[in-house]
């Protein structure tokens, strides 16, 4: 089902822009992959060289958790604001929203889309903006 749809959608777009061939696509991402490999190699070489250069003299005091110079109190654990958690919910929801902007951004000004697509996206964003307003009014976005 989706395959048929994609085939003719591509036909619609193909006329307006250049076609990116899969060969070029794979070449591009091979280079990206190679950069990652180079990065890992660089780090590995750096650590190997560091291993030759640096001293290794572990003492108990050195391995102690650092707490401003005094001996650590309690365990390596601190309780903190649960409040942060609301923001992370908000972010996940809005991020899902935001990614739809990108495919839309590439096509909405193309012939055959235009104003209608713009309105569609505005409705979409409008709903989310209502959500943001709701969060604002509920005082989620402020701590004080």
């Amino acid at each position, binding site marked *: 089902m989706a395959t048929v749809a994609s085939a003719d959608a591509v036909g619609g777009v193909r006329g307006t822009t250049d076609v990116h061939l*899969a060969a070029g696509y794979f070449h591009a991402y091979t280079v990206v992959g190679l950069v990652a490999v180079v990065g890992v190699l660089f780090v590995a070489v750096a650590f190997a060289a560091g291993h030759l250069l640096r001293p290794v003299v572990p003492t108990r005091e050195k391995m102690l958790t650092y707490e401003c110079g005094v001996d650590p109190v309690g365990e390596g654990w601190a309780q903190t604001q649960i409040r942060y958690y609301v923001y992370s919910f908000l972010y996940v929801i809005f991020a899902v929203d935001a990614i739809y902007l990108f495919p839309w951004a590439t096509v909405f000004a193309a012939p055959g889309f235009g104003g209608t697509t713009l309105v569609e996206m505005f409705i979409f964003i409008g709903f989310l903006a209502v959500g943001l307003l709701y969060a604002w009014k509920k005082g989620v976005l402020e701590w*004080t």
Partner: protein
Amino acid sequence: MTLAAGHPGFMSPTGVEIAFVLVGIATLGAALVTVTTKQLVHAALWLVVALGGFAVEYLLLTAEFIAWVQVLIYVGSVVVLLLFGLMLTKAPIGRSPDADSGNGWVALVVAVAAAATLVWVVVDAFRSTWVDLGGAAQGSAKVTGAILFRHWVLPFEALSVLLLAALVGAIVLSKRGAPARRSLLSKSEALPMRGVPSERKARES
């Protein structure tokens, strides 16, 4: 993707296909470690590996846009959310023996059943569909956008309503017991870091 007029053979060992299989095995391994490790945060980090493996698989299927969505949403925010939750609720360093609920076998059965169903559905739906690696890249943002805004506008709009509902739900759930906290906060200046004990006191009073 094109309909398989000339069947490319089930396993023509081109580089992309070999890479696809290898990454798939690695991803499966990472996923298995994710569910079997006894260390909570390690599980979350293995999940990053598994999700990253998925992203690479999408890339190999020329679904460029979906691949980066995978990285942005799953690795960049869902896993961060997970880690965040783990850190807030005391995830110890080392094994947590009480993390096992003892329902391992039931979970295994459910997982296998779900996987079998999914695999069957996908195989059934795309039995004769092949990604054409020789032609145009099919998964770019432009193609995705064209399909989305030409054929799937209504689900797209419905999605916004769903997201709104999720947002409101999250806020309502997280605001439980908030009035007491707010009254305390209005009295004293909010410090950048307030320990939980003071809040607990506020809730009791």
